């Protein structure tokens, strides 16, 4: 059992979820309730990581985060470290890769709030900002929590993109899924088996937690 890999995975997933909470809310909230030309295009871009092979995504990330890219060289001259094959690069890759898992439930949750309820809030004197905090956010809570839980679980299990962008550096980029792959490669079946089981149980718990929470929430709100 590679506990370093496990804790690295937890750290990466936690950081990804933290970033995605902000990014996902921004994207979902600005897409919800609006009709504008090109909306489908933006939705398609957000959903793209769902269907794109991780290797393709990883390749382009390497291209854009690499030492020869403007972003990569800027970060390297600032910090003295490369973006690729580092935790930072891995975080950027994970955020992009898990974006649809965060945005889609959040977007759905926002769009399921009736327009009349938001208008009632404005007519009760609530500013757009207080309407967001006091009405939209609580009503979209279930979607936001599912989005976070799903992107957490998805990041815990991601493999292809990590391998492409992060490589296999212990305590820096070697996550659980990479470690499992490693163990299988070196015929350490017992270790691979125990790590797989932990990941399986963990994912199952997260997903069933999401379902339970959604059911309880909608029961309370909609009767």
């Amino acid at each position, binding site marked *: 059992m590679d506990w370093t890999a496990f804790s690295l995975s937890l750290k990466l997933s936690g950081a990804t979820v933290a970033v995605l909470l902000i990014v996902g809310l921004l994207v979902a909230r600005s897409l919800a309730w609006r009709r504008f030309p090109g909306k489908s295009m933006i939705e398609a871009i957000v959903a793209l990581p769902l269907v794109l092979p991780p290797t393709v995504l990883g390749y382009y990330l390497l291209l854009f985060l690499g030492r020869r890219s403007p972003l990569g060289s800027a970060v390297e001259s600032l910090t003295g470290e490369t973006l690729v094959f580092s935790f930072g690069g891995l975080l950027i890759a994970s955020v992009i890769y898990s974006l649809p898992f965060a945005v889609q439930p959040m977007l759905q949750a926002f769009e399921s709030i*009736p327009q*009349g*309820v938001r*208008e*009632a*809030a*404005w*007519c*009760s*004197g*609530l*500013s757009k900002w207080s309407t967001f905090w*006091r*009405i939209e956010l*609580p*009503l979209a809570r279930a979607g936001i929590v599912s989005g976070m839980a799903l992107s957490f679980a998805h990041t815990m299990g991601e493999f292809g993109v990590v391998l492409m962008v992060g490589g296999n550096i212990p305590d820096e980029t070697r996550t659980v899924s990479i470690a499992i792959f490693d163990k299988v490669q070196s015929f350490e079946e017992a270790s691979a088996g125990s790590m797989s089981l932990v990941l399986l149980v963990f994912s199952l718990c997260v997903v069933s937690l999401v379902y339970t929470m959604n059911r309880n929430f909608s029961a*309370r*709100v*909609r*009767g």
Partner: protein
Amino acid sequence: MRREPGLYDEPEFFGARQGLIVLTDQGLRLRLFQTRPIPLEVDLECRPGKLLALVGPSGSGKSTILRCIAGLYRPATGHIRCAGATWLDTGAGIDLPPQTRKAGLVFQDFALFPHLNVQQNIEIAVNPGFTKSGRAEKALQFLEHVNLAGLEKRFPHTLSGGQKQRVALARALAREPAILLLDEPFSAVDQVTRRKLKLQTLQLTRGLNIPIVLVTHDLEEASMLADTMCVLHAGKTLQSGKPAELFERPESTLVARLVDVRNLFPARVEAQLPGLEATRLECSGLRIEAAYHPGYLEGDDVYWSIPASSLLLHSRLRPSKGIRENPVEGRIFELIVIGGICTAVVRCECSRLDFTVELPVHVANRNRLRVGELIGFSILKKSVHIMPWEPPHGGSPRPQDSSDSTCNQNGWPDRRP
């Protein structure tokens, strides 16, 4: 000091000088115009303490007008003044957001906040200038005002339709609005509750000294609750007036149809008799004497109407007053009793006109009215209302030209089924 007349007599100025409440500018004054995407041609006003009902078929723009007042919809051009403040003036670039308009809106489906309990739903609309406990106290006051004390901790999904409606009303009032807007507030409530709610709403809102605008497609509701009723069609305000006035004296056949005037017939002005204070009409062979209507020439094609309740039944037991005015005889071929009112459709055999007569049930019973019986009634002269000719349903310009209906000897469309 010498008073300059003119200047001081201006009520607004005088009121401002005296620090009094300015009565002239406290109500709602509204003009809207646009052609697309929803056509609007609206001119309305409503004084404080009065209830204005907007009626019209669905899609006539009633709700859009309410949304314009609340600031949820911006018309192409318009001017809205309420409580002495300009809320919208497209010419001057003024368009206050809903948050600062102080309009209390009760939504058609109530739009309560599902995640907040009843008290929180109301509290959220209370002026944030109050302290937390002050707001809670206010919310409870409003809850008591709508007779819902004790339900403050309940969530909206546990309430009945009528209770939800009253929470929505309390929330709208909690804002201490300058105008109350009710968008079909009784449509999502069952029949029995609806009647009770209407009475309660009437009581609750009568004490308020603000204009109230009610949107409804229910004419009965409008005539029961409204001081002024305004008929809308395709976004245009056609006629405003007291409900009775609209039913008795619609300005056009369109208004007459929209307020469901059932006795509406085409006719021709036979004679103008100002000396006798009468206008005589010829209608499918019937000669009808109406009160004098100036403005029409002999030979003009017109429409005339009479409320179903203004046709006077000739009692079969003893003669009653007024039977000499425009007597008509016909056979009852339909008899319906709803809520104490008996509605009879009487086919007048000589003219083939169908009149709808409304009578209290006890009168109908005492006279033993049955389908197939011959009865006599009078068209009371003062209740006959004449309006200008309009081609029926946008069709032929004159009845003679109508090709889809057979004509009788008088040239009018045959009304027989």
